[in-house]
């Protein structure tokens, strides 16, 4: 068997080009105004280069816009100071060394626009102007990196907050029996969205603070049930999940055509799925078997008149419960 290394050349496929990472997405979402530096250290054309050198050194900046009566007249970077140093010409005014053809960017543009300029040119910074072309800030690659990192942390933090709030739901709400009900309508033949409901249910359970093993078991069971509704029903069906501190009840029901022989349907490998469904990786006759494996209790009722009703239960042990169940028990016994 020849497993020798083949050429490592990477061909950029259409998929590569269309693949947008979360950071890239943020670069499109974030506006320049959200990441730019607003406190601008500006210069005037008549300042001498020696003074600017001191300013750059003390303020730790590597470039600044040059203003005349508040209007942008040019930009001066550390490169320009190096040129002046080389020419032993620090006494000359800024106007001699600044670039007066300045590229600007609007504060309402997405960050990606600035990134494009930075990639194409050798500019280190861009003056930012508002819709009236008035200077409002300056943006550097460093600002963008910082902005993106902050935004990413924010996205992460948001999820944490949601999780924290959700996980306290059952403790914060007092009743004799609290439950949270989620309902999803599943369309027949909708393979494109197949699995969306189970994904959302799994996410909800994790946000509620469920043990990941439990969330996974529910996810797998519901996913198979969801695919069954998509593949085998006349008009689709409904998934209903009831979450209680001590148990999760899952229900999937439809209005037909029903399962003629449940015993046969429960047999591993038995399937009535079409070739088309099998090509999609389903219909292997393992769905109901998988479901049974994942839950503590499974009830399947079906008739060719009224359709199919699948009821599943997962019981939560004390350590996995969403709230202190023993407390609730005492309350109700009083």
């Amino acid at each position, binding site marked *: 068997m020849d497993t020798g290394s083949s050429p490592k050349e990477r061909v950029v496929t259409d998929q590569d080009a269309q693949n947008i990472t979360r950071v890239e997405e943020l670069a499109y979402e974030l506006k320049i105004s959200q990441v730019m530096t607003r406190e601008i250290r500006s210069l005037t054309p008549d300042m001498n280069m020696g003074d600017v050198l001191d300013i750059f050194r003390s303020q730790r900046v590597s470039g600044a816009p040059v203003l005349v009566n508040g209007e942008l007249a040019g930009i001066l970077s550390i490169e320009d100071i190096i040129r002046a140093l080389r020419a032993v010409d620090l006494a000359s005014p800024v106007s001699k060394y600044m670039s007066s053809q300045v590229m600007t960017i609007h504060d309402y543009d997405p960050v990606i626009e600035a990134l494009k300029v930075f990639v194409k040119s050798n500019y280190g910074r861009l003056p930012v102007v508002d819709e009236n072309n008035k200077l409002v800030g300056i943006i550097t690659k460093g600002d963008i990196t910082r902005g993106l990192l902050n935004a990413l942390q924010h996205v992460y933090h948001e999820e944490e907050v949601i999780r924290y709030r959700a996980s306290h739901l059952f403790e914060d709400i007092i009743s004799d029996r609290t439950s949270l009900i989620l309902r999803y309508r599943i369309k027949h033949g909708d393979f494109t969205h197949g699995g969306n409901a189970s994904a959302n249910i799994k996410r909800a359970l994790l946000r509620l603070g469920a043990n990941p093993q439990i969330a996974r078991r529910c996810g797998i069971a519901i996913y198979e049930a969801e695919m069954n509704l998509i593949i085998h029903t006349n008009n689709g069906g409904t998934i209903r999940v009831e979450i209680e501190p001590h148990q999760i009840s899952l229900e999937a029901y439809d209005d037909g055509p029903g399962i003629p022989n449940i015993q046969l349907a429960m047999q591993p490998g038995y399937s009535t799925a079409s070739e088309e469904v099998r090509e999609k*990786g389903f219909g292997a006759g*393992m769905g109901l078997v998988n479901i049974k494996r994942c839950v503590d209790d499974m009830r399947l009722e079906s008739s060719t008149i009224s359709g199919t009703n699948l009821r599943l239960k997962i019981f939560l042990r004390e350590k996995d419960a969403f709230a202190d169940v023993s407390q609730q028990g005492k309350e109700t016994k009083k």
Partner: protein
Amino acid sequence: MKIVELVKLVNGTVLVQGDRQDRDIKGGFGADLMSDVLASIQPDAVLLTGLCNPQVVRTAQVADVAAIVFVRGKNPPIETIRLADQEGIPLISSPYGMFELAGRLYKAGLPSFEKSVDPDCSCE
């Protein structure tokens, strides 16, 4: 095994980076039938598959798959890529076939994360 090592081993093209570059891939699994995956895959495995539709990503998400490798240089449709990007699951396309890939990963020390079928076993 980290994603970077996996990409190198399978001579892969990264289609979706995924959320967690530092996630540890603990084992491997190969199947084209999603029910087989759901039936016996353990969490944190790499899934080798020839199936390219979005259901692969859904299956991966539900079953806590760490990364998906498409065999024989298959490129999934854009819906699959979008969903993977949204769910933060890495997608890699490899020029090798399923057998070759399984062999390479096994040789590199990645154990099988396919539980043998036991009618009485639970999902845990």
